[in-house]
């Protein structure tokens, strides 16, 4: 509540009521007293007149009463929500707590993390390749990449998932060999090859690749052409040019959207419940179908998704900060550094100079 006022206002001894405040702003001469200086503010006819000496006057920043009103309303709303969350017995926090760390839930959580990590990593690698294809000079590579993105962005993930799982219906066997001959190096029944896990990873990866290809392409395009030119003129090999010069700079544009995607993927994995794959969401469903405690268990899943997203957000902050090296003149302080600085400058009788040097 106190954060909107600037430090100057906080230290001002003037009582915080709007009526008193307006006086010094409108007419400084009045406060100085009509007895000492003739009360003439600079009007249209007073050209060339020297101002009185206001150097000793206290500066009072403008007040924003509506900002306070808004803050108060929102605070009231937040407090109301918190109160209802804490006191409404139907949230059944007593049920949420034990399930939150139950073995089956934790197992489901690990499956969710596994799916996210594998599909995320594979998706971004494939996306990088697709982005390079899209930027290549070969019209075939460009159109293949474009078509891939087009197909996978235009079909629902749910449909893709079911399609992969039922691939055995379309192709009974999957084999690796020379095309148009009978030579086979490897052959297997599709149904044994495509497990629930494989179908889930396939669906999520290909879908993720289609989206991340566009993100990475956008990042690469955002890097100034002169950078490539300079690297080329220096004789730096093509692969190095991409990885050492262009990508690190593209990362600044890629990261915010990429983290959006990864966070979306964490929750997107919940869709594999259609394959009866026991990740977090499916596990929760199985449990509440048995116990009928639907809302508390959905809350358990929600809380875990919130935890994962929060952790990812912290990662995002530090990774983005790493890649902003060189893009900003001085790196902004991390929250931790800010806290340390705050303590250093506000703590009683600590040695401020050494502390400040430490935060740089």
């Amino acid at each position: 509540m106190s954060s909107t006022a600037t430090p100057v206002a906080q230290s001002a001894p003037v009582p915080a009521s709007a009526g008193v405040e307006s006086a010094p702003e409108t007419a400084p001469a009045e406060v100085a007293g009509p007895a000492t200086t003739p009360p003439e503010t600079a009007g249209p006819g007073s050209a060339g007149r020297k101002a009185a000496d206001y150097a000793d006057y206290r500066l009072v920043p403008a007040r924003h009463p509506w900002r306070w009103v808004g803050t108060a309303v929102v605070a009231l709303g937040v407090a109301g929500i918190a109160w209802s969350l804490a006191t409404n017995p139907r949230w059944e926090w007593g049920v949420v707590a034990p399930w939150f760390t139950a073995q089956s839930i934790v197992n489901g959580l690990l499956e969710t993390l596994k799916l996210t990590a594998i599909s995320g990593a594979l998706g971004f690698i494939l996306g990088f390749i697709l982005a390079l294809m899209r930027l290549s000079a070969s019209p075939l590579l460009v159109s293949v990449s474009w078509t891939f993105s087009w197909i996978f962005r235009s079909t629902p993930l749910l449909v893709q998932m079911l399609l992969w799982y039922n691939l055995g219906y379309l192709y009974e066997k999957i084999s690796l060999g020379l095309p148009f001959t009978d030579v086979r190096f490897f052959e297997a029944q599709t149904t044994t090859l495509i497990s629930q896990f494989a179908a889930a990873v396939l669906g999520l990866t290909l879908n993720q690749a289609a989206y991340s290809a566009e993100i990475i392409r956008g990042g690469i395009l955002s890097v100034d052409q002169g950078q490539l030119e300079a690297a080329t003129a220096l004789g730096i090999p093509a692969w190095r040019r991409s990885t050492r010069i262009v990508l690190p700079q593209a990362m600044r544009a890629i990261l915010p959207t990429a983290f959006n995607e990864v966070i979306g993927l964490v929750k997107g994995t919940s869709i594999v419940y259609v394959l009866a794959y026991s990740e977090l969401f499916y596990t929760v469903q199985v449990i509440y179908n048995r116990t009928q405690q639907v809302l508390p268990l959905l809350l358990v899943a929600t809380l875990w998704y919130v935890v994962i997203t929060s952790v990812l957000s912290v990662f995002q902050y530090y990774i983005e900060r790493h890649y902003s090296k060189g893009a900003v003149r001085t790196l902004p302080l991390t929250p931790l550094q800010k806290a340390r600085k705050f303590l250093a400058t506000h703590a009683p009788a600590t040695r401020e100079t050494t502390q400040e040097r430490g935060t740089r």
Partner: protein
Amino acid sequence: MSTVATNTLPAPAATDAETTRGLVEITKVRKSFGATEVLKGITLTVEPGGVAVIVGPSGSGKSTLLRTINHLEKVDAGFIAIDGTLVGYEVRGRRLHELREKEILKQRTEIGMVFQNFNLFPHLTALENVTAAPVVAPRAGKPRSSKAEARERGLELLDRVGLKDRAGAYPRQLSGGQQQRVAIARALALDPKILLFDEPTSALDPELVNEVLDVIRELAKSGTTLIIVTHEMGFARDVADTVVFMDQGQIVEQGTPQEIFTNPHEERTRSFFSKVIEPAFNI
């Protein structure tokens, strides 16, 4: 497959490797962008250790010519040779075949380039910018530098351009003049025979121009061949041993600074300088 070194043209007076280091021969070079022909048959020779300054109105093809020298821009016709070796091509029968990228990169390491907008790598420090190429670029006849070697040489070069104490700074933390000096050090890191400067001071505030020009003046004495595109006429007169005046994709006139600046033969040269030189000299 024949190597680059075998494509030797009959180079004049190829007696000592050191004395011919950095002979640039541009022969009948043509280049079009779409329908507009920006280079209409350019022929120009720059002697080893020479300093050629190319001047002319904007759009006259100066920068394009410079960029063809290290094959950043492919020519449509004609050829460019350095010390008798073709740049970007090899002779097979009666044809010039474009080299593979790897070979071209090797050639480029012998040709340093300094850009108008510096094009420093913003995510690397000044020193890292200077050492970026020597540790990864495949060089003709030389092994890649180790990290320690590159670092030592990098600091030496930064010292030479007067920026040793800013080695750890990122480009954005440097002034324009300092950035351009780092860019010069970066171009020098591969020990090139030839240095190309594409309007090196055009993006600089006037008071920063001289610190960059001083570094280039210093280089002019070092025996490296310099080819400079610039609008700084005073500097051109001062540093060049050949001034080349280009207009509309052609070399109108070339000669010593004395000849070109004070006694040009061509009317076009005269009218260009009458617009450009006086404001530059009378300040």
